[in-house]
């Protein structure tokens, strides 16, 4: 490589920083959605880099479903403190009042209320006109066509046929009142890129990504971790200790673990490289049918 060349990771990083700066400059009320996972962690680091030596100039928002792994919340609170974030948490109060949970109401309804509706409430309440999300285009096929700046109408709906052409790095940041843009600065990153970046930057991640003995039960072919006593055990179900880790993090009753011995970053990367299954396999919510993510996005899910 010649002297004036960026490696692919540097190039991805610089481009993401450019995107964040555009948003900070052109939108009145941007917000960063923080899901605590590895992609969110990379976003936070990129935001630090984009605005250094200044502080991250927008709010960081976590839409909590109340069913996150406990270690995620501990990690979140630590990040908020260490990075001096302007942090806000939102939990759908109607969902709480009606005790919406994945067991009594089914995965779809629960996700809709606690995630999609919760997110919309939080965005409306904050009157945010731009929201950063950590989604990547390599995650799922319908994401492959997602723009970096994804336009949403005032009902937060995504219309795949009515997306703005996106050329060069000239992003159209104009929205009318009530409309918003979901911004995906990691669009061009792959899962491998994210891990390599975490390794390169020595970023902290939730310990759940590393293999450890954890109590699990088997449900629909997935290994579900018994994170607290709210998980109703079925008759005869007995949690057993397994050396497992998570490739992706979400609500613990909906996130499958994988058996693994990978307890360091290089080992995680090696395991992923040798693996023959893609990362979304661990997410119960995508399993329903092949177009399910597209349908969720139309409704306003990320």
């Amino acid at each position, binding site marked *: 490589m010649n002297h004036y060349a960026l490696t692919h990771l540097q190039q991805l990083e610089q481009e993401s920083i450019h995107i964040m700066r555009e948003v900070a400059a052109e939108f009145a009320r941007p917000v960063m959605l923080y899901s605590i996972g590895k992609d969110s962690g990379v976003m936070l680091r990129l935001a630090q880099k984009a605005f250094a030596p200044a502080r991250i100039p927008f709010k960081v928002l976590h839409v909590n479903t109340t069913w996150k792994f406990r270690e995620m919340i501990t990690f979140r609170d630590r990040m908020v403190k260490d990075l001096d974030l302007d942090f806000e948490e939102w939990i759908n109060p109607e969902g709480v009042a009606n005790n919406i949970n994945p067991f009594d109401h089914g995965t779809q309804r629960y996700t809709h209320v606690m995630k999609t509706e919760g997110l919309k409430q939080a965005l409306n309440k904050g009157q945010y006109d731009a929201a950063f999300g950590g989604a990547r285009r390599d995650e799922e096929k319908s994401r492959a066509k997602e723009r970096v700046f994804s336009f949403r109408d005032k009902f937060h709906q995504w219309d795949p046929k009515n997306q703005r052409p996106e050329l060069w790095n000239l992003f159209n940041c*104009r929205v009318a009142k009530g409309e918003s843009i979901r911004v995906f600065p990691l669009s061009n990153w792959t899962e491998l890129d994210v891990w390599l970046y975490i390794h390169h930057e020595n970023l902290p991640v939730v310990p759940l990504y590393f293999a450890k003995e954890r109590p699990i039960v088997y449900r629909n072919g997935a290994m579900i971790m018994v994170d607290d006593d709210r998980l109703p055990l079925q008759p005869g179900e007995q949690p057993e200790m397994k050396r497992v880790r998570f490739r992706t993090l979400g609500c613990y009753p909906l996130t499958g673990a994988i058996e693994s011995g990978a307890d360091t970053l290089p080992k995680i990367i090696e395991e992923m490289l040798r693996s023959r299954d893609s990362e979304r396999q661990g997410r119960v919510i995508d399993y329903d049918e092949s177009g399910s993510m597209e349908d969720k996005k139309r409704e306003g899910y990320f």
Partner: protein
Amino acid sequence: MSYSRQLDEQGIDTYLQRYGNREMLRLLTCGSVDDGKSTLIGRLLYDSQMVFDDVLRATKKASEKFGTTGEEVDLALLVDGLQAEREQGITIDVAYRYFATERRKFIIADTPGHVQYTRNMATGASNCDLAVILIDARHGVLEQTRRHSFICSLLGIQHFVIAVNKMDLVGYSEARFQEIREAYSEFAARLGVRDIHFIPLSALKGENVVHRGASMPWFQGSPLLDHLETVHVASDKNFVDLRFPVQNVVRPNLDFRGFAGTLASGVLRTGDRISTLPSGKQSRVKSIVTFDGELAEAFAGMAITVTLTDEIDISRGDMIVAPNNAPPLENSVEAMLVWFSETPLQTGKQYLVKHTTATTSGVVDEVRYRINVGDLHREPAQGLQMNEVGRIRLECTRPLAADAYAKNRATGAFILIDRLTNATVGAGMIVERKTAADATQRRQAAADAGRFVRMQAKRRITPEARKARLGQEPFVLWITGLPRSGKTSLAYALEEKLFEAQRHVQVLDGELLRLGLSRDLGFSGADRWENQRRAAELARLNLGSGISTIVALVSPLEFERQQVRAIVGADRFLEVFCDAPLAVCEARDHDGLYARARAGEIQNVTGVDAPYEPPQRPELTLDTANTPAADNIDKVLQLLRSRHLLP
């Protein structure tokens, strides 16, 4: 995944180190609906073992439902994403795919080939280094092929791979491949793309995609993936012209004031003298700040924060440049525009113009012509419809620090936004050429700055002395008209008359120019303009030496003739129009130009498949169809006498 082999050989630590040093290549794939584009991408991913088992299982399931390949897995379904398009069996938007090999990370912008999706192709092409253009070996070069190639070249892609697909359906015929190669090369000569590479392949059978295969031993080149891994694109970047559009002003406290942005081009070092646009104020680079520490230098593509030694007022939308290398600041730019919106482009309507980090408002005050994307011909147009491409003039409220797109993609591009709907309605690429008025203005400005004076000072011989010696007032006679309308014979007859009258005169006609001075030019619109420009500049130099010039060129466009008038200087420029109907000209077709054009052997012939705009205010119009040649010669001589250019 093929990673396993690499890992066994290298171990994870070596792998991590090497992977960190990979380059990135962005490429665009384009082809018509049935060219097998999705199959090709699927094949690339599948054969380079980038497909996960669960995805493959899902694809197998989908193959049974939607597939077109019978028992085999339909690789196209690996890449076709949205439900709607899967049901229609076509790709309807730009989709991005990612894969990596040991050498590079690839981002594929997969764009549809359907006629109405020019906008998607332009979108995909805007960030790409390379385009893979698919041709179905059975059908050869189609209008779609030309369309795709044109858009790719318009968006500045310098590397083309012409993937001649479905070779299995033409018996892997070398002759067929060569035939397509020749046909495409002839067309592509007009595009001005630096690097065009042809590969015969079969995506379905996996021949020459990742693996060489045994069916085409006659092909000596590399398979597609090899080429993508090795094609040299690093030198495409501009490290010469410093352009740093300011995105944000960073002010964490009273002691720090930095300007954040991405270096669009060039190299910036601490201590460098810089100038800011539009204010023109100068300073020096105090530091280049990043989260990871200060840098001594930064180069194109890097996102940095810069502090300066002086307190000067800079805000978002301003540009930091080198004092001796600044782009012109202009309210009015010429550009190629791709129109995206269902509502046609309206001249005179206000749009928002986003150029680098600056947003201003602007009006397209003229559509000079529309390009027929299929055959590259220019057509007169009032506005632009969705998916049309045209040459326009944009007048902005605030000046743009604009470079030509050909020189600088980042500072030569802009988008147009509708003020009411906020939709992105157009994408523009700035063209260097100035309008006639601008050129005159610039010349005037240069004269004011004393450049002419200095030039004259170097010259010891004054124009007056030359006139006295040569005994003449020099002029430029520009003869325009359709091919075979009698321009050249008029020019040489005039030369003879003037020579007899002791005048010094030079004739420039197309044949003479293309013999040497313009030997490097073809017959595209841009090349034909360049040929005229060179003739005009030569005529101007002749004027300086006291010699008259007679130029005989078709010069079909009014706007271009205005420009040559500006180059020469309006006071010494005489435009003569040889007016003869096309039928008359075509009847005089002694060398078969029109016949070959009609037969489709050659393109871009004025009168046949390229427009001719008659002059609006020529100094003289000659009826070269009915009037005897001698009378026409006399008319020109009379004109010269009436202007006191001939006694």
